[in-house]
């Protein structure tokens, strides 16, 4: 028996060895990888966990001295701030480590991608988006998008295709909203063209990846059983209602920074979301559960978009309404 197994193992190895890359294929692959690495160079200066000397030791001391206060203060830290490494290399990884389930991992990775894009928008607006900062943010964005899509795939593999599609939709809509913020920053001239191009490329790649993933998951969801869809619908309506309340709260907080056209846009968006919710409920009553789920997903995307634009308006005075939508004087 052992001899037979040894022979089988040897044959497997021999057959597998013939499945290798040819010399020319390997050369082409190496050139392609070098090209990719040149487009995403290693930063000149890194901020590893324990190697930033005094600045980081001071940040660590802050945690000991003031505990959660420092971690909390770091939440809004931007690149260049003494607390930024605390945020991206301690606080966030610790939170990520406690996100055990794929859904929690995906949600937090989406949140981290959102944070990097908000940070980029803010440093651009402040004129402090140098080459190193931009490259680092673009690389981190790509990393978080990969973490999110990996977790989403795990979710789908575990049988939660509906949740996986939801998470993909969240990520895609947030990325799209940030792309429009990036366009405005570039137009306003507060971001260097090269920096905007680097982050824009990272965004474009992320959008392409999420679109492809979404297409695949839609196919899987289409074959999901009716019971699973029905229970997903109940949870979805509740979740969206909470999101609407959250957005309304943020609108109230931001009322002093919204101009007339933005107020009109926000009001219009919220009405549109309400109409979509009504449509979804009606479809559900008619028994068309798959369509109801799709309409809820559209409402979710609009709310995500509105959330990103509201934040950008508060941080950067970015217009929520497109210029052509502005009311006439």
């Amino acid at each position, binding site marked *: 028996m052992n001899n037979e197994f040894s022979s089988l193992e040897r*044959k497997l190895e021999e057959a597998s060895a013939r499945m290798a890359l*040819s010399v020319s294929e390997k050369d082409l*692959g190496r050139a392609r990888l070098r090209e990719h690495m040149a487009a995403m160079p290693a*930063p000149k200066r890194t901020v590893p966990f324990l190697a930033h000397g005094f600045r980081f030791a001071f940040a660590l001391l802050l945690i000991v001295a003031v505990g959660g206060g420092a971690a909390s203060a770091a939440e809004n830290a931007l690149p260049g701030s003494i607390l930024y490494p605390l945020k991206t290399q301690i606080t966030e990884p610790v939170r990520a480590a406690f996100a055990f389930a794929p859904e929690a991992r995906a949600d937090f990775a989406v949140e981290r991608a959102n944070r990097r894009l908000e940070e980029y928008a803010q440093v651009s607006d402040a004129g402090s988006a140098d080459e190193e900062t931009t490259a680092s943010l673009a*690389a981190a964005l790509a990393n978080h998008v990969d973490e999110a899509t990996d977790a989403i795939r795990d979710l789908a593999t575990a049988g939660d295709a509906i949740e996986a599609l939801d998470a993909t939709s969240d990520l895609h809509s947030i990325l799209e909203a940030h792309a429009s913020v990036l366009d405005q920053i570039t137009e306003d001239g507060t971001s260097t063209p090269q920096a905007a191009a680097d982050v824009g490329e990272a965004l474009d790649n992320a959008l392409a990846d999420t679109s492809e993933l979404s297409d695949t998951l839609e196919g899987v969801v289409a074959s999901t059983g009716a019971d699973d869809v029905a229970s997903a619908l109940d949870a979805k309506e509740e979740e969206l209602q909470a999101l609407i309340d959250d957005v309304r709260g943020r609108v109230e907080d931001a009322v002093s920074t919204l101009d007339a056209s933005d107020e009109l846009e926000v009001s219009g968006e919220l009405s549109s979301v309400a109409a979509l919710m009504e449509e979804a409920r009606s479809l559900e009553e008619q028994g068309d559960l798959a369509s109801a789920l799709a309409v809820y997903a559209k409402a979710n995307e609009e709310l995500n978009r509105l959330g990103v634009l509201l934040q950008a308006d508060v941080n950067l005075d970015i217009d929520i309404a497109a210029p052509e939508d502005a009311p006439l004087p």
Partner: protein
Amino acid sequence: MKGRPDERAFVEAYDRYADAIFRYCYFRVRDRERAKDLMHDAFAKTWAYLVAGNAIENLQAFLYKVAHNASVNEAVKSKALSLDALQEEGGYDPEERALPSPEESAEGALLMRNLEALDDASREVLALRYVSGLPVAEVARVLGVAPNAASVRIHRALAKLREKIT
């Protein structure tokens, strides 16, 4: 890999692991061109991970993990190769590698077909051990199990393959 990512070291890692990662991806998606793309994606994403300031303890296991995740999506979309297509996919350039004998080609193709007909778990563990050439400890790390458990899975999978062949 720790500290600032070293471009030269990473390209050396490509030279060392590209074949094995390609074979693994090819075995998952059964399309040569797509397997090359997935192999490239695995290295590209790993580089991005390093550039973002993360450290990787075991680069080989990390690459397999990334390739595995990328191929899960592809495996859902990929279509099974026809018998003829499988036989044509020799995986070598006659100008650059010695040709196997006709008997070796036929036997190898038959072996691969039987391997692909196994259940997912058996195919996965044999692909990691023999298609990719990972030692048992590395197979265990990729699968997230103890080395003993990986050895047992490999042995059982070989037994199933043996049953199919005889």
